[in-house]
Structures are given as structure tokens and as C-alpha cells.
């Protein structure tokens, strides 16, 4: 496709002063892309393993329980919470609310705090479920 040179271009990243809203916006895409690739692959693997029988399922749970498996699963759960919270923030902004500078910044920060908190809660629950 030929690009039309008369169409306006937005100024790029380098001219803006960094703020939490930019970080959250970029994280929304990064976490979304991670969930869409790694997350979807883990989901499909888990289901296919369960459909293939005891041995295949055992392979999955063994890998998932190793340190790198846990790292991937913790990462995916954080990505899920971050993407969800920032997605909910987008819903509020879709109705035209929450654009005041201080409020926008506050809720951007809250998605970052919330996703870490929810990830910690989830894994504490899983850990206590397994050991308590």
C-alpha cells in the first residue's frame, strides 16, 4: 500500500515526558502480546496433555512445576492481572471519564500496584493450598 504523505503523523515517543499512563499503555500491549503467545500456548498444551492421557499430562505438570515453569506461570498470572486491570481502566476511559491528569495518573499507578498485589495473593493462596 502506498502511504499518503499528506496524512498527519502523531509525534513519536521521544517528545513526551514519561509518566505512569505511558508505561501502563505500553504494558497493556506487552502483556496482551505475551498472553496471546505464551499464555495461549500453555493453555493449548495443558488441554492437549489432558486429552492425550496420563503420561502426557504428567510431562506437562512436571515441566510446570520446575523453576522455569513456575517463572512462566507467575509471569503469565501477573500479565493477566496487569492486562485485566488496565483493560478495566480502558473501559472507564472509553466512556470518557478519568482523563483528569491527577486521576488518570492515580489509576494508572493503581493498575501497577494491583497487578503485583493480586499476583502475590494468588501465589500465596496456591502455596498455602499445597503446603497448609
Amino acid at each position, binding site marked *: 500500500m502506498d502511504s499518503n504523505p499528506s496524512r498527519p503523523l502523531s509525534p513519536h515517543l521521544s517528545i513526551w515526558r514519561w509518566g505512569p499512563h505511558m508505561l501502563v499503555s505500553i504494558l497493556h500491549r506487552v502483556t496482551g502480546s505475551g498472553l496471546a503467545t505464551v499464555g*495461549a500456548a500453555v493453555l493449548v498444551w495443558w488441554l492437549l496433555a489432558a486429552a492425550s492421557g496420563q503420561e502426557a499430562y504428567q510431562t506437562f505438570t512436571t515441566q510446570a512445576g520446575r523453576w522455569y515453569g513456575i517463572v512462566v506461570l507467575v509471569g503469565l498470572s501477573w500479565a493477566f492481572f496487569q492486562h485485566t486491570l488496565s483493560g478495566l481502566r480502558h473501559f472507564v476511559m472509553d466512556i470518557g471519564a478519568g482523563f483528569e491528569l491527577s486521576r488518570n495518573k492515580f489509576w494508572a499507578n493503581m493498575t501497577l500496584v494491583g497487578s503485583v498485589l493480586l499476583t502475590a495473593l494468588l501465589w500465596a493462596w496456591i502455596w498455602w493450598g499445597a503446603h497448609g
Partner: protein
Amino acid sequence: MTMETPLARVRGLGSAREGAHHWWVERLTSVSTLLLFIWLFVSLLRLPGLDYRTVTEWLQSPLAAVPMLLLILSTFWHLKLGMQVVIEDYVHEEGSKFLSILLLNFATVIGAAFALFAVLKIALGVPHG
């Protein structure tokens, strides 16, 4: 008199009027995907374990298999719409953009098909004796 096709004349001029629908379905599937994942997390955390027998017996129940099938459809639909936006924003060269979108569509359909088949195989298979 121009030799351009009508398609060549409108290329690069902007919207093909699909944008609003894409935007709306992306939000619709985000709500359904979120609700279904809350269901999945709560269900998994309530199971006595995540071993083979527990998970496959659970997936044989219609009340687990049907939401799981919906979760797969909703999730893959949503991730396809989202990844398409990411590709369209960052892949500018027309050839690689076309190829990326093509691969995205193939990967989405293949991934979803395998996941759906897996759930159906468990749900419709011979129950544990």
C-alpha cells in the same frame, strides 16, 4: 482515463469502515474472556488437586466442558483482534504486514481448533470406570 483499478485508487486513504466493529467486538470479547477466566480460576482453585484424574473428570461434566469451550472461543477471538492491532501499528512494510496478519489468522484458528478438540475429546470420551 486511468488504468488504476478502483481498489488501487482507495488504498491508503483510510478506513474501510470495519474499525468500529473491530473495536466493539474487542471489548465484547474482553468482558466474556474475563468472566470465563474468573470462572476457570475459581473452578481450578476449588478442585481438590490438579492431577490428571481430577482434571479430566472435572472436564467431563457439561458444566465444566461448555464454559471451557466458550472460554477457548472467546480468548482466541480476543487475542486475534488484539494482536491484529499490534501488527497493524508496528509492522509498516506492506509485505510483512500481510504475512503477519495471515500467520496470525492461521495460528489463531489452529490453536483454537486443537484446544476445542482436546476439550471435546475429554468431555465426550469414555468416562473413568
